[in-house]
């Protein structure tokens, strides 16, 4: 309490600063990055959370492997120089030597073991275990630069999963930390909660020194303010500005943000159990009419739950065409067979999910009504929405179409498909044993076989099951100060590596 009162006093005194307004660091190698969402934790094992990952991932804390979601390099070495499979369940990782943490300690296999144990520990609530599901991970130190990692049951993509586990020193406590220590090219120099986080370049980094010497992250909820900060030179990069503010061709650019916007079809209630009705839902929506009007012109039509850069993405699947007459015919056909096509369908959306979301939802409602569906639109705030989106679903619900966004920039569909389509998936709207088997087979496969299995699953879901109404591959807009070089990519939503920022 005494310390708390002292912190109150210190905060009160902080207003006494007198200086000229902050402005661009035109000649320096410092950058200011304005993010839309504040950071409440700087915990390495939470870096899969986008607001934390954008500051921390690969800047402060690195991983054994790194997936190239933009190019075609696939899985790349980071703290592990190489890896090989010992048996079905065990992979051996050969670690990089002469790597130091920002506290001066040496990096070795004990750190990797501790990082894995810590990330999977029940003493913390790390996000990491969600990517491993029920798989048990055991790390065994072979020597200081070699470690065996075993997955039970076997996990075909274990090296890819290691791109999620951030490495911390072996003396990191089994509780959330606020001063992360890592092997990355930057260390945290200051964290003024609610105001900014400052990272400084390390002189003893094992890799090539990035150009940026110091990065200051500030947080502005209003995207118009973020855009204005880059315009005035107060900031250099605003990775998420609104489409309405992206008016300057010199500084603003659109980029795919790895979010897929779709509507989950609730097959647990009539009339959505009928495949013809699900097809009619897809045919009733004129997706192209939204592009360039209610959603940005750079938006593309989605044909899978994952973005096109994902392994096994099936390019043969075409977006559903807009054909209102065919939709009406399918509904009439179903009605003739006794399907309760007049049953109310609740269209559920999330407020503030993206700009114009309400207008998009109203337009979808209108299009569905036009072909004869009885649709009621309801918009929810995030907390209520999450309750509806996840299982268990309310037994007394009406049939639901739940419009949601899903983000997978990790390169493999495994991070999406179980959750969205498996009978036991927490957000799955149906149950199909064949889909379950296909997911399990693809999850266990490797190499080209894995890609093919995922590809087949996408086709089956779209053509045979008609599992959902896939709508858009979303885009974001970034504003970049002309003095710096930075190209936002599909990865920018989850991480923003300062090593990719340069100066003109």
């Amino acid at each position, binding site marked *: *309490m005494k*310390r*708390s*009162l002292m*912190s*109150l006093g210190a*905060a*009160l005194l*902080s*207003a006494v*600063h*007198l*200086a*000229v*307004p*902050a*402005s661009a660091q035109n000649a320096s190698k410092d950058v200011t990055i304005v993010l839309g969402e*504040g950071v*409440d*934790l700087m*915990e390495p094992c939470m870096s*899969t*959370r986008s607001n934390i990952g954008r500051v921390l991932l690969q800047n402060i804390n690195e991983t054994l492997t790194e997936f190239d979601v933009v190019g075609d390099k696939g899985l790349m070495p980071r703290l592990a120089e190489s890896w090989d499979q010992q048996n079905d369940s065990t992979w051996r990782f050969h670690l990089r030597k002469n790597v130091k943490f920002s506290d001066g300690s040496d990096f070795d296999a004990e750190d990797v073991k501790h990082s894995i144990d810590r990330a999977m520990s*029940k*003493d*913390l*609530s790390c*996000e990491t*275990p*969600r990517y491993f599901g*029920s798989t048990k991970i055991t790390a065994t130190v072979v020597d200081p630069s070699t470690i065996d990692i075993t997955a039970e049951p076997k996990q075909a993509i274990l090296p890819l999963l290691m791109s999620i586990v951030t490495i911390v020193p072996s003396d990191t406590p089994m*509780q*959330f930390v*606020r001063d992360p220590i890592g092997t990355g090219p930057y260390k945290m120099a200051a964290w003024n*909660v*609610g*105001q900014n986080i400052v990272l400084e370049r390390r002189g003893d980094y094992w890799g090539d020194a990035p150009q940026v010497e110091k990065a200051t992250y*500030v*947080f*502005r*909820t*209003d995207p*118009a*303010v973020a855009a*204005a*900060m880059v*315009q*005035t030179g*107060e900031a250099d990069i605003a990775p998420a500005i609104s489409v309405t503010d992206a008016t300057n061709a010199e500084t603003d650019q659109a980029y795919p943000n790895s979010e897929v916007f779709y509507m989950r079809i609730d097959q647990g209630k009539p009339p959505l159990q009928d495949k013809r009705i699900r097809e009619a839902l897809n045919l009733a929506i004129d997706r192209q009419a939204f592009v360039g009007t209610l959603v940005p012109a750079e938006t593309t039509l989605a044909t899978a739950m994952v973005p096109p850069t994902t392994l096994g993405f099936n390019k043969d699947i075409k977006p559903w065409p807009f054909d209102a007459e065919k939709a009406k015919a399918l509904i009439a056909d179903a009605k003739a067979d006794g399907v309760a096509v007049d049953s109310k369908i609740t269209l559920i959306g999330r407020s503030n999910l993206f700009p114009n979301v309400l207008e998009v939802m109203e337009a979808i409602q209108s299009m569905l009504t036009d072909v004869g569906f009885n649709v009621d639109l309801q918009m929810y*705030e*995030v*907390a209520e929405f*999450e*309750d509806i*989106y*996840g299982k268990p679903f309310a037994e007394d619900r009406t049939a639901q179409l739940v419009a949601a966004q899903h983000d997978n920039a990790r390169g493999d569909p495994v*991070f999406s498909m179980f*959750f969205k389509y498996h009978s036991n998936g*927490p*957000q799955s709207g149906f149950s199909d044993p064949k889909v379950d088997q296909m997911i399990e087979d693809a999850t266990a496969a490797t190499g080209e076989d894995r890609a093919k299995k995922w590809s087949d699953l996408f086709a089956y879901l779209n053509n045979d099951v008609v599992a959902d109404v896939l709508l858009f591959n979303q885009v974001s807009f970034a504003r970049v100060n002309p003095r710096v070089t930075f190209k936002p990519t599909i990865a920018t939503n989850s991480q923003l590596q300062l090593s990719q920022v340069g100066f003109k």
Partner: protein
Amino acid sequence: MRKLIFGRVLSSFFSLAALVVMVFFLSRLTGDPAALFLPREATQEMLDNFRRLHGLNDPLIVQFGRYVWDLLHLDFGQSLRQARPAIDVVFEGFAWTFQLAAITIALVSIAAIVIGSLAAFRPDGIFDRFASVVSLIGASAPDFWVAIVAIVVFAVNFAWLPTSGTGTVWHWILPVAVLFIRPFGLILQIVRGSMIQSFGSLYVKTARAKGVGNTSIIFVHTLRNAMLPVITVIGDQAAAMLNGAVIIETIFGFPGVGKLMIDSILQRDFNVVLAAIMVTALAIFVMNLLIDIAYAILDPRVRT
């Protein structure tokens, strides 16, 4: 006076206790924090583990008993989102809000009292009409619109001030100016009305008859008697500001307690919500007490 203060403190204590009980149970009705802290794809094991770590599996009455016991030891619990003491999180935010409110309300009070008094001195004169128009515009302009326009004009177009943030005195100008406008309009109107009423009273006529100067009539004879309703409104406005200026904090990236409270409610960070409500409620009780004391000083009838 002592009796007045004691009575107010006692009633404030019971109000605060009732508030804690109410907010504790009502906040729990909003749902499970685990569902918001953990990702959608969290396994059941992760959800169970989170609830176990944070004592959310215990019956509500047990959780409440534990909370009250900790509170008696001045332990407000940990913030779920920030993994540090909730009271530290709240004090940081409240310090910013307190400064913002104190500076703004001081400037508003001075400006509204001076301009309102002068406007009331010549009702329907040019100064009065100008002040009325300005105050009505101020009282009716939406904060978020004024804030965005202010940024566009003064930060983007003229480049006189920073767009947002904290760090220097310059950063305070736009937030304070935007926050100033609405209460200024309201208080100015109250001052004007109250002063006009006082100018018509017998003691002012007597003063004029005795040849007292205009400045003395306004600021010595009339103002003190006209201040009672003004203090009430200033108190209301200050209380609203101590609760946090959410829009101002959001747009200007100001780390105050208002946005903290909204975020904490949305994220179900219960300990921060409770600590924030207690700290702001306590501040408002203290301020109300000061207003009561000011009343007593200005109006001898209140003291008896």
